[in-house]
């Protein structure tokens, strides 16, 4: 019977890890539904970008209040996860505070640090909640944030507060029991925050406080394992994916759009006077589809972008179209991409073929796509290097090249370019008229 707790711990722990692994594999499978793209060049620049933007949070602090609060929560979680290591070892071995004898004074410092961060995280998360639900900052209340996205955002904040409170309760009861000289509870650690909570237990029996300590310990680790598995279903995946996402983010100037290679071949053929227009194509491959109408037409970095988005809405907040009341919201473009990719993924899980839904029209409307000014404000604003603009441009390409479905005025503009080399109906021969006007 002595080992029952250890066995239960082992089952729960490996079960949680297995379920998480299953979802990570599903995530990777889904991302691989996209087209390969070469974003593995210049590794040293990419590592530097990841260190600066993801690890260093350089773009978060562009908005100082949210940025600083986020850094508190971020460092808090990273630091407190060191303690997780000990909790897991204790869980398996049935030990208690197993690292304490090895670390001596350092252990005290670590525990004290965790406690301070736990308290700071609670403060930061309460402020986050206040900004979201009480101050009601506009970008958190846009139409795409209704329903699950709103609840998801709140759940994450609640889970974080609960986890921190459990951690502090566990420490407080532990500290109280240490004071009582209960043998199992070795004298270890300094508890600057939870020692303030310890008097709450005065007057309780030792066994009650032991029960509280054990319950808090178990709920804390179970909560952590639950949260780990919650990630896949949540916008909160960014805590993991921000790192690969910034690694694979664009290194080129933001204004540069890739040139489609298959089009280049065709254009070269058209402009080559020695090419035989009636010659059979060199390969019998299917002609490539132009642009994007569904998630499988996107590239893998764009799909990774969609899973990495934490719906903070900085992109939408700075979007000139959104600011002036148009339907376009770059955040919604990313959320739609993820939702559709999840839909496709779950169909594949059931061995079904992809249904007739697609990203275009069923998720992202043409009206949204045509409202974009390609100003790159959304790309600049994203704290983890997501590129909603590339998806918009690729979908426009599908509309125009596969469906000839540009707005009428744009068709006129393109006709002008085709016929007279300018977007307006002016004669190419008149391009120097301004020179003659100088002297007159």
């Amino acid at each position, binding site marked *: 019977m002595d080992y029952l707790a250890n066995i239960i711990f082992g089952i729960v722990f490996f079960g949680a890890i297995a379920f998480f692994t299953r979802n990570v594999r599903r995530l990777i499978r889904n991302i691989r539904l996209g087209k390969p793209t070469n974003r593995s060049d210049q590794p040293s620049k990419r590592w530097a970008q990841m260190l600066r933007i993801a690890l260093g949070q350089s773009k978060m602090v562009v908005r100082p209040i949210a940025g600083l609060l986020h850094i508190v929560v971020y460092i808090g979680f990273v630091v407190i996860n060191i303690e997780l290591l000990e909790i897991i070892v204790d869980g398996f071995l049935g030990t208690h505070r197993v690292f304490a004898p090895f670390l001596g004074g350092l252990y005290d410092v670590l525990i004290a640090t965790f406690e301070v961060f736990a308290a700071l995280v609670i403060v930061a998360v309460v402020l986050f909640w206040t900004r979201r639900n009480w101050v009601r900052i506009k970008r958190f209340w846009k139409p795409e944030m209704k329903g699950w996205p709103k609840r998801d955002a709140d759940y994450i904040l609640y889970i974080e507060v609960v986890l921190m409170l459990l951690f502090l309760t566990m420490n407080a009861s532990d500290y109280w029991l240490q004071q009582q000289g209960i043998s199992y509870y070795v004298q270890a650690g300094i508890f600057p925050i939870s020692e303030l909570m310890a008097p709450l237990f005065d007057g309780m029996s030792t066994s009650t406080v032991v029960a509280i300590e054990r319950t808090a310990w178990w709920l804390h680790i179970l909560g952590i394992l639950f949260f780990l598995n919650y990630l896949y279903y949540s916008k909160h995946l960014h805590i993991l994916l921000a790192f690969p996402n910034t690694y694979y983010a664009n290194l080129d*100037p*933001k*204004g*540069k*759009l890739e*040139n*489609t290679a298959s*089009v*280049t071949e*065709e254009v*070269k053929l*058209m*402009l080559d006077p020695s090419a035989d227009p009636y010659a059979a194509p060199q390969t019998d491959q299917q002609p490539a589809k*132009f642009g994007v109408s569904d998630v499988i037409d996107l590239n893998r970095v764009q799909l990774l972008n969609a899973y990495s988005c934490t719906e903070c809405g900085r992109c939408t907040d*700075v979007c*000139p*179209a959104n600011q*002036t*009341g*148009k*339907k376009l919201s770059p955040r919604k473009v990313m959320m739609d991409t993820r939702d559709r990719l999840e839909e496709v993924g779950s169909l594949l899980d059931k061995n079904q073929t992809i249904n007739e839904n697609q990203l275009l029209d069923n998720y992202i409307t043409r*009206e949204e796509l*045509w*409202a*974009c*000014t*390609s*100003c790159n*404000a959304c790309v*600049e*604003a994203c704290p983890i290097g997501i590129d909603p603009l590339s998806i918009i441009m690729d*979908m*426009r*390409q*599908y*509309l*125009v*090249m596969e469906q000839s479905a*540009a*707005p009428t*005025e*744009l068709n006129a*503009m*393109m006709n002008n*370019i*085709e016929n007279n*080399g*300018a*977007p*307006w109906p*002016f004669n*190419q021969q008149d*391009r*120097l008229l*301004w*020179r*003659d*006007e*100088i*002297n007159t």
Partner: protein
Amino acid sequence: MANTTDSIRTMAQWAQEGNSPEVLFWVGCAGSFDDRAKKITKAFVQLLQKAEVGFAVLGPEESCTGDPAKRAGNEFLFQMQAMTNIETLNTYGVKKIVTTCPHCFNTLKNEYPSLGGQYVVMHHTQFLKNLIAEGRLHIEGGHYKGKKITFHDPCYLGRANNEYQAPRALLEKLEAELVEMKSCKQKGLCCGAGGAQMFKEAEAGDKEINIARTEEALDTQADVIAAGCPFCNTMLHDGVKTKEKEGKVAVMDIAQLLAQTEDL
């Protein structure tokens, strides 16, 4: 020197004489045809002449870079334009290009290389800044001394290509007071023209983008809204007109401001 068109020669004329210019001035469609943008073209040419830069234009051999087609989704038309232009540019052995349009600038600089067109491409504010640094062009404050000027960052110069400093360095030469708008530089608000929006009506909303931007500019109480893009210039002009502030605020390209202060 002023008012001579003799020095405005085409690439074909230079080639005929067996010479090559220091730089090709890519005028762009707006700069060639749009009445307001033509003023920018003329002002920039006056500055080039003042600095005695041997420059050429392509004239009838220039054609749209393809930027609005690409951003409207027509990759085929874009590449047709690009290949045709690259053929022209490479035939003349063009090495260096300057343009007053950030859209042409971005496309020539970033999207032509992989199609075989590799040139040093500069926005006119960068080029003018270099001329001043090299001592070839002198600008005295004069006309705008003590006036308030605010600069509207063109998206395709700023965020797209990370150039925020060159236009501001030129404005400093005017000895004017440079005031920034609520959103500027990396956070600069678009004028509403990019991504082919210039050529279509906006989608339904509660405001036009150029009005939103004009309001930000007017909030600075500036005497002049300086632009670095013919399309921004048009959008902001229209914005100022809609807000009925034409008498109070001028919208001008930096090249125009420099030419005017030099009485060119």
